[in-house]
């Protein structure tokens, strides 16, 4: 039982990271109906931005709350700018082209980022700065609450609440919802669709930036290909929850994290990655629109 609880904490912490990244996939899909395959590499760049910021500021070995905040901000800014640039220069010119073109372009951008990063940063893994001292905060029997897990959960919850506020309450959030349903009507009402799409990339990429710092904290090794596997899993999480659905991405991410943790704990770590793709296959066969996928209700 105590094992079970411990794994639940670990799984939720991993899952909330998947959720943060899955949100980026699902938001862009919601608004452009495309899978932004470069999203996983935006995430990777976020980790490197935090890495170099820490090195330049000399805070690689000074864990604490302020380090966390500084690295989060630097990573979010870097990811936002990159997301903006990718949308502006790679996707926007193809807005009216067939969907397949933009999808292939996304794969191209992904490869470009991965391999130019290998040239730029080197292919060897780097050690991510220490952000929080990884001590045990509290212990309940054999169940340990580690500071890193609490930080991951805390930051993720704050980020998701902020996202929810932006989408539900702010003007730009309402515009995002409007554009994702019907860009034509939104534009008719005065919404600048290009601005809304840019903002969607900014928000989605920022969340990936947050995710990258949290991952760096939990698994402090970063390399230019670090985004591939976690990106795929986050993508599966988004599909599992119902792509295009914000709550779905969160739910899918948490379920992915939990199931991965339990599979590793009770079966074998060999199946860690197989699980993600097993889930993808099952979802595609039995519930292609995902758990919370919208069954479109339209009255004529």
């Amino acid at each position, binding site marked *: 039982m105590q094992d079970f609880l411990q794994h639940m904490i670990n799984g939720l912490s991993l899952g909330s990271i998947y959720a943060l990244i899955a949100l980026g996939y699902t938001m862009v899909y919601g608004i452009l109906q495309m899978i932004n395959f470069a999203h996983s590499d935006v995430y990777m760049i976020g980790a490197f931005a935090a890495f170099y910021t820490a090195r330049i500021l000399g805070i690689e070995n000074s864990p604490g709350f302020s380090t966390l905040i500084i690295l989060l901000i630097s990573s979010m800014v870097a990811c936002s700018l990159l997301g903006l640039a990718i949308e502006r220069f790679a996707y926007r010119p193809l807005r009216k082209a067939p969907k397949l073109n933009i999808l292939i372009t996304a794969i191209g951008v992904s490869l470009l980022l991965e391999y130019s990063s290998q040239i730029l940063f080197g292919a060897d893994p780097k050690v991510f700065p220490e952000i929080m001292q990884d001590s045990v905060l509290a212990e309940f029997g054999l169940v340990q609450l580690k500071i890193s897990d609490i930080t991951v959960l805390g930051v993720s919850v704050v980020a998701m609440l902020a996202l929810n506020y932006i989408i539900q309450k702010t*003007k730009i959030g*309402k*515009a995002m*919802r*409007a554009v994702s*349903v*019907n860009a*034509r*009507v*939104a*534009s*008719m*009402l*005065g*919404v*600048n*669709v290009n601005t809304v799409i840019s903002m969607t990339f900014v928000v989605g990429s920022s969340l990936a930036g947050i995710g990258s710092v949290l991952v760096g904290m939990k698994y402090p090794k970063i390399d230019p290909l670090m985004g591939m596997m976690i990106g795929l899993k986050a993508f599966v999480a988004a599909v599992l929850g119902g792509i295009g659905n914000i709550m779905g991405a969160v739910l899918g991410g948490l379920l992915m994290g939990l199931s991965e943790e339990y599979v590793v704990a009770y079966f074998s770590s060999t199946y860690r990655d197989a699980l993600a793709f097993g889930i993808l296959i099952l979802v595609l066969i039995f519930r292609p629109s995902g758990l919370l996928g919208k069954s479109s*209700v*339209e*009255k*004529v």
Partner: protein
Amino acid sequence: MSLLQVENLNVYYGAIHALKGISFHINEGEVVSLIGANGAGKTTTLRAISGLVDSTGGMILRGEDLQKIPAHKRVLHGLAQSPEGRGVFPQMSVQENLEMGAYSRKDKEQIKKDYDYCLTLFPRLKERLWQMAGTLSGGEQQMLAIARALMCKPKILLLDEPSLGLAPLIVAQIFDIIKTLNSQGMTILLVEQNARMALKAAHRAYVLETGTITLEGKGSDLLNNDDVRRSYLGV
């Protein structure tokens, strides 16, 4: 001078010449109907005016060249549309849909007044303010689409097939609203397949056939025109 003047408007969808140089105008305070069969180019005309499709030709709204104004800014110049298929945002509440109508406006007090006005005009919407727009009936969605367009505070209201798929009783209600709005000074361009209702409601009307205007005249004259009676009224 007319409120909206369209000269030699052309629209191409790839190789298809959808609008072949049509010209028409709408005077202030008029209801003008554009009738025609499926695929005649009625919706395309409205989309061109709203800037949702590329077009060539002149479109002058109150002395301003619409071609030079990007689609999302045309609403600031007094253009609002209740689009084909209503286009309400199904996952938003009625209130949020109405707020989207005032998206570009900053005159908070006037927005509040217009909001109250819309709810007096459509009491049904007032009863359903918090309901998701997707759960409304077709007629209520059409009312919401018109109310949302009114929230843009337009000088000219474009209505794309407001009667589509609605029960006759509801259609009559919608046309009553059109009459009321017009009597309060609203200029309306009405696109309809329901030729009889559209001609009755209109001061003037144009008949569109495969991208060309073939007839124009007073609504009442067209109602008695033999060609129109045969092709569009089924008598």
